[in-house]
């Protein structure tokens, strides 16, 4: 007699997205206990400030990851879009809102390019996006004639966009408004993944592409859209990036995607596709950000964070693999 899995409190906790929340809480607790400075409000604000672009990239890259692919161009892409937008504002005198729009459109464009390369031309996702990573790195620098680009500071005209993320009140406390926006976006995209056709088919493609094709669904379209969404969010990420980094340097940005992708995987997105959640990604990215910000407070260089992130990424994937192997060994249906 076959049994189906019984739901128990324990199995609820084996769901990665809840483990991640626990990890976030745990890490925060550890850092707060270990360091008085960490407990300061300003630290909290700094942490949030630098987290926005990671979170946005993470939310975006979750979609290609869930289809079983990846987008490695988000880091250099984000920098490229920020550079181009900022250049137009700085040197061509366009209003900031247009600069922002240009960044978004550029992101969508590169996203579409990635989508075509992977979904239509059948190139391996990591290679195709590695190439667009190089291309956006080159473009970012080329289109701005190799200048470093500062977006307007909050005192200058056009600097209003900073207040999307942070408001300074009368007695000089800073309120991290940006946190509200990323939460809203997270909620929206979680809804998209779980309850819209687009999200549904993205999961189906990652889980069993052939079966999805056989069901008569236009797989190519939705597959491309996954990358377009990713590109859009890389463009969105450019805005808080521009706000957080006073002067954007061309040629930077490589390595940032690892933190976003690592965050998504830690948050429960499967490396081979088919499963994952936006909420999990959200918290997973915060695990990475907490490490980045917190480790120096307990005396470890920021570079330890890189090593630890790498180890965590592998650990997360290995847990997933062990689970799969165990399922096959006990002869369950999933093989």
């Amino acid at each position, binding site marked *: 007699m076959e049994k189906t899995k019984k739901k128990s409190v324990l199995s609820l906790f084996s769901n990665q997205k809840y483990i991640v929340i626990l990890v976030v809480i745990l890490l925060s607790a550890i850092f707060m206990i270990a360091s008085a400075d960490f407990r300061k409000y300003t630290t909290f604000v700094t942490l949030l400030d630098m987290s926005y672009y990671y979170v946005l990239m993470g939310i975006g890259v979750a979609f290609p990851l869930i289809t079983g692919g990846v987008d490695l161009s988000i880091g250099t892409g984000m920098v490229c879009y920020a550079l181009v937008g900022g250049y137009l504002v700085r040197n061509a005198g366009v209003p900031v809102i247009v600069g922002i729009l240009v960044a978004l459109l550029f992101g969508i464009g590169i996203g579409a390019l990635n989508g075509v390369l992977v979904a239509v031309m059948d190139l391996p996702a990591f290679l195709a996006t*590695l190439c667009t990573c190089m291309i956006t790195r080159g473009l970012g620098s080329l289109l701005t004639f190799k200048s470093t680009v500062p977006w307007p500071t909050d005192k200058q005209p056009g600097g209003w966009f900073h207040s999307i993320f942070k408001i300074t009140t009368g007695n000089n406390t800073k309120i991290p408004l940006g946190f509200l926006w990323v939460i809203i976006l997270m909620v929206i995209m979680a809804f998209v993944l779980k309850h819209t056709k687009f999200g549904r088919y993205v999961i189906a493609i990652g889980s069993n592409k052939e079966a999805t094709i056989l069901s008569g669904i236009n797989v190519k379209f939705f597959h491309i859209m996954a990358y377009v969404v990713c590109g859009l969010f890389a463009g969105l990420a450019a805005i808080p990036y521009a706000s957080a980094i006073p002067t954007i340097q061309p040629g930077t940005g490589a390595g940032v995607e690892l933190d976003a992708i690592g965050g998504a995987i830690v948050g429960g997105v499967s490396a081979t596709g088919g499963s994952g959640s936006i909420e999990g990604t959200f918290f997973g990215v915060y695990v990475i950000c907490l490490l980045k910000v917190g480790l120096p407070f307990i005396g470890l260089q920021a570079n330890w964070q890189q090593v630890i992130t790498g180890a965590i990424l592998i650990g997360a994937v*290995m847990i997933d693999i062990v689970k799969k192997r165990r399922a096959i060994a006990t002869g369950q249906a999933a093989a």
Partner: protein
Amino acid sequence: MEKFKNSAFVKKVGFNRIVLAGVLILMYVIFSVAIKGFLGSSHLMGTLNYVYFLGFLSLGVTFVIATGGIDFSIGPVMFCCALISGYCFGTYHVPMAVAVILCILVGLLFGMFNGYLVAYWDVPPFIVSMASMNIAKGAASIFTKTQSISWPRAEEAGGWFRSIVKVGDFPMGLILFLVGAAICAVILNNTRIGRYILCLGSNKEAVRLSGVNVRKWLMLAYVICGILVGIAALFFVATYTTVQPNYGDQYNNEAIAGCVMGGTSMAGGLASIGGTVIGVFIIALLQEGILALGLAKDVQLIITGVIVIVAVYADVLARRRRK
């Protein structure tokens, strides 16, 4: 055209490689015409300098791609090797010979790490690469306390290692690179390791069902890559002296580009050392030519990115035809 394609000479050398060599020569001619003084030896030197370390990186990643996998931790790992062993030389005063061996050893260790995870744990190679990349950057930074490391110049103590690149005016590096490439070609085509790597890259299950310990040979491919990355590190510092932590990403792409351009298939099973060598020269020449033209490095990046896309797509099409 068909007759040319089917002639014995072409079959032996490989049509793709002839086309590549043609592209290389064409590029050289174009640059020589377009840029004054390009024919001069300083540009040749510049190109060769770039070839040495990039060449060994490409050779290394050829073995990995031949198994159907990928490794884009090679750039940061190369820097990690150079940083750690250079630090040992500069701060702990280990003899240069030891530093050289240490450099290669670090590469070997990363190769083992990557290979073990891919072969025995079935972790997707691109994830292992990403994690390795991070770990290499972080480890190097921590070890050297985020300082950049300069290896000794030729006239300083321990500077003898530079003779791998140049002995007087003689481009020793070129000889060593070509010798290295030849050894790799022999390994790939004439030894057990090479045979198993190519076969398992083409059809892993069929090889497993023939009684071969597939996991072992798969891991070895990554180990070989690691060793070659360590060697690449030596050539890098012998040429450019200084290495910084948190650097090296761009060389990943270029190394993979050289390899893929040369005819090594991303799907695995098909690899060409000769093609990789020519591919590396093309990239190095491109780099040098673009610089000489006064254009930004960025143009070269964009062009390289496009070239790889074209090369891989050509491979995809060829694969469809072969089925």
